[in-house]
């Protein structure tokens, strides 16, 4: 039996000098899922993602990634996943090729593997023309693609995506979403968060709604819509949280 992609058990967490954000939080995400985490601003989405990627330490409980506890702080767990943060997380002075060389090495790849993967990613994400130009000259869409390429260079089994398409045009968004589906089809589990609910409907096959640090809904989108008699994710969100969702 395959271990869950993510298993969160009895998780407690609070920021310094603040009230408890997560209290006995439990969550199970199976391998191969395209999981979407949604909620209003301040609900705890980014915090939960930071806890799952080891950026924050939690008070008590446990988080396992593909059967490996991240509490051991063993850096080898980090090899299993990729992370595409909302902020551009690369060196703007460098070219996409140079960024991939550096982050590829830090992800544990050797020179040959980096070259091979870089070539594949430049093709898939249409970055060949600009691969030798410094990133600071790029448009927002191009930068998003570089951000994504760095996150997947080591072909992780698990990919965390925090607003991966924010600020990009329709074509680029389509290109990125298609690539993510392709990755998932090849076995990568996606953990995704976004304010683009229509995009989420297109990409995610499992959804969790989070509010005030609590998971208030967790199922496939179809099941949730049927259960709550709603037509779209946006309607479901308003129905469950009682608020209008912030749409950028």
């Amino acid at each position, binding site marked *: 039996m395959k271990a869950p992609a993510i298993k969160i058990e009895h998780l407690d967490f609070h920021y310094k000098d603040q009230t408890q954000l997560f209290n006995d939080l439990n969550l199970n995400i199976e391998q191969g899922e395209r999981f979407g985490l949604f909620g209003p601003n301040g609900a705890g989405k980014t915090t939960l993602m930071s806890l799952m990627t080891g950026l924050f330490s939690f008070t008590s409980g446990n988080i396992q990634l593909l059967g490996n506890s991240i509490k051991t702080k063993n*850096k080898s*767990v980090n090899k299993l*996943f990729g992370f595409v943060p909302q902020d551009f997380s*690369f060196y703007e*002075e460098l070219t996409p090729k140079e960024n991939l*060389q550096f982050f590829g*090495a830090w992800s544990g790849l050797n020179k040959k593997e980096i070259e091979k993967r870089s070539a594949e990613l430049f093709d898939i994400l249409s970055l060949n023309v600009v691969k030798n130009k410094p990133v600071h000259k790029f448009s927002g869409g191009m930068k998003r693609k570089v951000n994504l390429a*760095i*996150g997947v260079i080591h072909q992780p089994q698990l990919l965390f995506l925090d607003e991966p398409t924010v600020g990009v045009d329709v074509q680029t968004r389509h290109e990125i979403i298609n690539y993510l589906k392709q990755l998932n089809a090849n076995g990568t589990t996606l953990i995704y968060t976004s304010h683009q609910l229509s995009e989420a409907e297109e990409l995610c096959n499992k959804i969790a709604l989070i509010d005030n640090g609590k998971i208030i809904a967790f199922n496939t989108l179809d099941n949730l819509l049927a259960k709550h008699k709603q037509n779209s994710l946006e309607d479901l969100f308003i129905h469950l949280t009682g608020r209008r969702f912030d749409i950028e």
Partner: protein
Amino acid sequence: MKLLATIQKDVRILLRDKMGLLLMFAMPVLLVVIVTSIQSSTFDVVGKNKIELLVCNKDSGRLSKEFIHALDTSGIFKILYINQTSNEKNIADEMHAKDIVIGVVINSSFTQQIEIKAKSNAGKALTSFGLEGDTVTENIINSNYLDLYYNPIIQQSLKLSIQGALNSTIQIIQSKETLKDLYFSINEKSLPDSLQQQLFTNNTNIKEIPLSNNNEKVILNATQHNVPAWTIFAMFFVVMSLGSSIVREKNSGSFVRLKTLPTNYFIALLSKQIVYLKVTFLQAFLIFIIGIYLFPFIGLPTLHLPHDILGLIIVTLICGWCAVSYAMCVGIFANTQEQANAFGAVSIVILSIIGGLMVPSFIMPASFKSIMSISPLHWCLQAYYGLFLEGGSLKDVSTNILSLLTITIVLQAIALLELKRKKFI
């Protein structure tokens, strides 16, 4: 592979930071050239260059002419004259107009006063020998021999040196007159020129021996003093680039990603240390090359490297490592680039002052001498001076190197503890 890739990344970013490169290489070179030029001319004030002395001779006697001649041939002064009828205002105007810092008015009774003084001294001497001497009343004219005008900008030490030179010249003339009077009183004829020359020829032999650790001739000039000092200053000024680079990385999105990757951030810091150590070494190499090849072309003394080149390389590397460790500490503790830059720059200036780079340590008050040992720049300077000025070898500066290594290890430990506290490593 990871370290190599990180070094490659850091070098690329550094090479694309034109402003940072300018700050690390062009500015120190400019600083060394300018400061050495200024210091060189200061060295020359008491060395080759003569001090311009404005003279207003209100005396028509022979001794004032002899006095001026003596000053002129002393090698210290370049005599410039002003009309004998000039008043205080005329002298001040002339000094301002011609940028002269010292002026002297020889009073009208100069010759007469010295003659009276000489006769009086001779008379007293004869009386003390049991012979009959003239009794001369000294207070016939009660005025100064000279009036000295000076620009308040001149250093007290320079003013005292000039006063000393003037007094000594007057003393010689007065002694000569006294001797002539004595000789005349005893022999009833004038002092022969040959004897006079023999008696007053300056035959004081002072052999100057600069401290040296070997038997080689030690070269002392502005270049030998300034190049090592400002090379150290340049090395420590990498704090502006390295400190900022660490803060920028810490505050950028890339740092978030680095923390999620299966590599310890220690590798990033190790890479930065290696890259910036190379930078400090290149800075020193460049400044030394300029001292050797460019300085002679612009009229400055050539830099002479120490005989122990291996020692020089090792000392340079240790100084560089200490500078890099300091910059790393600043970068790790600072929260913003502004903090890193401001604290980095000001602290380096303060450390260089208390370290003796800007003010020689021997003129510092005793309380400062104990503080200077906390400045890594002080130990760097002592190690370099040991090699450049005292002709020493690595063994001779081992105490300085040991102190420098101790400070470096402390800085490294502080940096690592802070990284651990912040959970970066």
